[in-house]
Structures are given as structure tokens and as C-alpha cells.
């Protein structure tokens, strides 16, 4: 009898193999373990990427998830966090060239999930907007943002909307997304390029005076900052 480590290595290899061979693989009960492992991972990914699931359909998503699992199996039993590499995996698949927005939509699912699971932080009550001139700002731990080359934000919002999307025909142009978590639920909204640049500068640790230099004189900095504080994306520190 092989020792515990040898047995587990061989068992694990057979669980991950595309078509396992050998005595273990021939036992009917072995398929139960294989199926349970695959099912657990596919369903964890489906829960994390509901919009991608909606776009690909159940069978299409399952095939994509199994492909991803073969390339990047989970390293941790905490499956809530599994699948960070899924958007990048989708972008590399030849078949997604027909769905050029798919990887960006997957990225938005991921950003929403990260915001949903991120640490809590109570925002200080913002003072009256007119008198308010903080020197430094920080991102809330749940804040996520991205600038995407496809209209993925419009597509994502349409699929997540309760109203449905009978005649979705987005204008083909880059879009920005901001996810915040005010109160309970994570909320994704479109943002303009200048808001994305401001968030990037805050993330990089720029002081408020420096933000002014970065964004240029035309930017209405107080209004931009007030809006991003009001939606919980940034906090005065």
C-alpha cells in the first residue's frame, strides 16, 4: 500500500486528469469524486460570474469554466475568491473573438464580487460641500474601477437590470465603471474618463493639490471630489 502522501498525489492527479486511467479510474465510485470536484468549481465560478453565465448560457459557461479549471485549479478551499484569472482566460480563448466584450463583462463581474466581499470601513460624515477642502483622499476598501475598450458597462448593466434588455444596441466605444458599496449592496455605475483618472490618482496616493495638477485646470475638482465622496468611492483622510 502506498503511503498517505503517495496515495493522495495519485488520487489528485486522477481527479484533475482529462481522462484518468488505471485501477482507480475504473471504479464507479471514483466518478462521484471527479464529478463533485468539477461541479463545485464550475458552480463557484458561475456564482462569481453571473453575467458571463447569462451571455454564454449554462452549457457554454460550464465548458468555459472547466477549461479555466484545467489551467488554474483553485489553490484555496475558499472558493468565494476563486477565479480572479477568469477574465484574462476568456480574453485568450480563440472562440471569444466573436464576443469581444465578454472578457470586459467578466472583469465587471469580478470587480462587483471583490467590492461585495471587501473589508468594511465607516465613512466619516462629509461636511457641508461648499466649505469642504480635504487635503488627502483614500479609496474605500470596497471601491473598484476600470476603463474598458468595449461598451461592457452598458452590456453588464442591461443584463443585471430587472427591466431586461429587449433592444440592446450599445454604441461601440470605451466605457468606465465604478463599483462602490454604500450601505449594504455593491453598486456598479458608469463613470467618465476624468473620474477614472481621478480615482487612479487617488489610488496612487496623490494629494488633493496634486490631483489638480494631474487633471488639469479645466477639471472641476471640488465637484468631482464631492460626487465621488457622496457615492462612497473615496474618503477624506
Amino acid at each position, binding site marked *: *500500500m502506498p*503511503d*498517505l*502522501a503517495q*496515495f*493522495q*498525489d495519485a*488520487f*489528485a492527479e486522477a*481527479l*484533475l486528469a482529462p481522462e484518468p486511467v488505471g485501477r*482507480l479510474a475504473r*471504479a*464507479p*465510485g*471514483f*466518478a*462521484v*469524486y471527479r464529478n*463533485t*470536484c468539477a461541479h*463545485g*468549481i464550475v458552480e*463557484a465560478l458561475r456564482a462569481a460570474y453571473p453575467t458571463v453565465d447569462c451571455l454564454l448560457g449554462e452549457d457554454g459557461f460550464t465548458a468555459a469554466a472547466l477549461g479555466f479549471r484545467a489551467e488554474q*485549479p*483553485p*489553490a*484555496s*478551499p*475558499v*472558493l*468565494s*475568491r476563486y477565479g480572479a484569472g477568469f477574465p484574462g482566460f476568456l480574453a485568450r480563448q480563440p472562440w471569444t473573438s466573436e464576443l469581444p466584450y465578454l472578457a470586459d463583462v467578466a472583469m465587471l463581474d469580478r470587480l462587483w464580487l471583490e*467590492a*461585495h*466581499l*471587501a*473589508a*468594511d470601513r465607516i465613512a466619516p460624515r462629509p461636511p457641508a460641500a461648499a466649505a469642504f477642502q480635504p487635503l488627502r483622499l483614500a479609496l474605500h*476598501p*470596497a471601491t473598484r474601477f476600470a476603463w474598458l475598450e468595449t461598451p461592457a458597462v452598458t452590456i453588464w448593466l442591461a443584463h443585471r437590470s430587472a427591466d431586461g434588455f429587449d433592444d440592446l444596441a450599445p454604441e461601440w466605444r470605451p466605457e468606465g465603471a465604478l463599483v462602490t*458599496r454604500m450601505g*449594504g*449592496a*455593491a453598486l456598479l455605475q458608469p463613470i467618465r474618463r476624468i473620474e477614472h483618472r481621478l480615482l487612479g490618482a487617488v489610488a496612487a496616493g496623490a494629494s488633493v493639490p496634486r490631483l489638480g495638477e494631474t487633471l488639469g485646470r479645466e477639471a472641476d475638482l471640488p465637484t468631482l471630489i464631492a460626487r465621488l465622496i457622496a457615492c462612497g468611492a473615496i474618503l477624506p483622510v
Partner: protein
Amino acid sequence: MIPTAGLSFKAVHLAEALAAPAAGLWFEVHAENYMIDGGPRLAMLETLRREKPLSLHGVGLSLAGAADPDADHLAALKSLVRRFQPFLVSEHLAWSRSGGTAFPDLLPFARSREALARVARNIDIAQGALGRQILIENPSLYLALDGHDWSETDFLAELVRRTGCRLLIDVNNVFVSARNLGFAPESYLDALPVEAIGEIHLAGHKPDPALGAALLIDSHDAPVADDVWDLYARLLARMGALPAPTLIERDGDIPAFATLMAERNRAAALMRHRGRAPAYA
């Protein structure tokens, strides 16, 4: 309040769970689902914990793994235990990690002398890190493996003796394993060290889609089967005056809260009437 019969907690049932007046009602969650930094999921568990006793059921420590339990995972579990003060913490007699890969399943192994020493060591490490006793659950088995030096009941009893852990006996797992591997579930229950049982699980199973009743799957997506209720009554009769808190475990095809409560109330009634002659006689 003394916890009697409980339910797997489902987020869709939060309002009903909080409002349920049943005496002794408690809830169990998978610890791994709450190993996150913050947000509404943890807030929801805080809300539940304020109203009802909570049990943390781990699925990822890989106590039967050939390596020590993962230190980060153990730290995350410890942090949850500190925050939520569960009245029970449990894990499985199984492994789920190998060579840097995690498997979302509870995998089998030969109950060899080497395995006994390894599992006992891993339970020691876990209990030491958590600063408390944990319960170890018998797995559902699908494969007859070679190389067992111990029966499962003797293996569990020996773990209790060596580590001071207690046992979580999943009666459905006993039934499923007995069917799949060909042993008598009654003999298994009769061989358990009942004084070490700190929790009981009851769940539903399904026949394998391809092989039918020749291979039962511990699917947790169906009501508890009559055969399993009979075995539960038999185990309660053995336990006598001290029945263990009992959970109706349901993870798939979730029915209405009232349907789960009906099963839960059936378990609570059996616990109350434990002194009576068991029905299976």
C-alpha cells in the same frame, strides 16, 4: 437556551430564521463561505448570530491530508471562531488539498496506522490553534480502498482518545457509505463511542444518475430518507438521556423555510422522546 435541532443557514431564509420562535433552534454555516474581508455576507451572519446559536462547519482544513493544516486557513478559521463564538466547530475525516491544489470535496484515504498518526497530529494542530475542541465528521464513501488497518468507528474512537476531539456523526453518510461499500449501518452505529458524539447530521441522498441505487450520492438536495430517520432513532436510543444537537443539512434544491422546519421539528420531537422504545425494534 439549549440548542436542540438546527438547520443549515440559507441567506434566502434570513428573515424567517430570525423570527422563528422554535425553542432550541440553531443554525450551521460552512466556515469557508465567511472567510472574506467584510460586506453584507458577514453582516448577515452577525445579525443571525445575535438571535440564534451558531455552529461553524469547516470543509477545507484537509485534516486527513498528508501535510499539516494550512496555517493561513487555520488563522482564518480562528478569526471566525473569535468573532462569532460558535457553540460547535466541526471538520471532516477527509482530505481536500494536495500539492498546492484545493479540491471542493471530502476525499477518502486508507485508515492506516500512518493515517491515524497524521490525522491525530492535524487535529492537535487545529485544536491548539483554535484553543478549543473540534468535532470530526464521518465522511460519505464511494470507493472501497485497500490498506485499512482500522474500521472507521475504531479510527474515530482512537482519534477521540488521542486528541480529545469529539465526533459529528452524519447518519446519512453512514447510510450512504454502508450501501455503497456493503456493510450494515446498524452495526456501525452500535460500534460508535456514543459518549463522544457532540453533533448529529441528517441529510438527503439520491441514487447515482447512471448507476441507480447501486451507488448512492450524499447530495444534500432532498428530504431525509425514512431509512435514515430509523437509524437516527436507533442512535438516539443508544445515546439515552443526552442526545446531541442535530442538524438538518440541506445545500441544494432549497425548499421553503417551513418545509425545512418540519424536518427539523421531527428531529426535535425524536430528541424529546428519546426515552421511549425506538420504533425500529
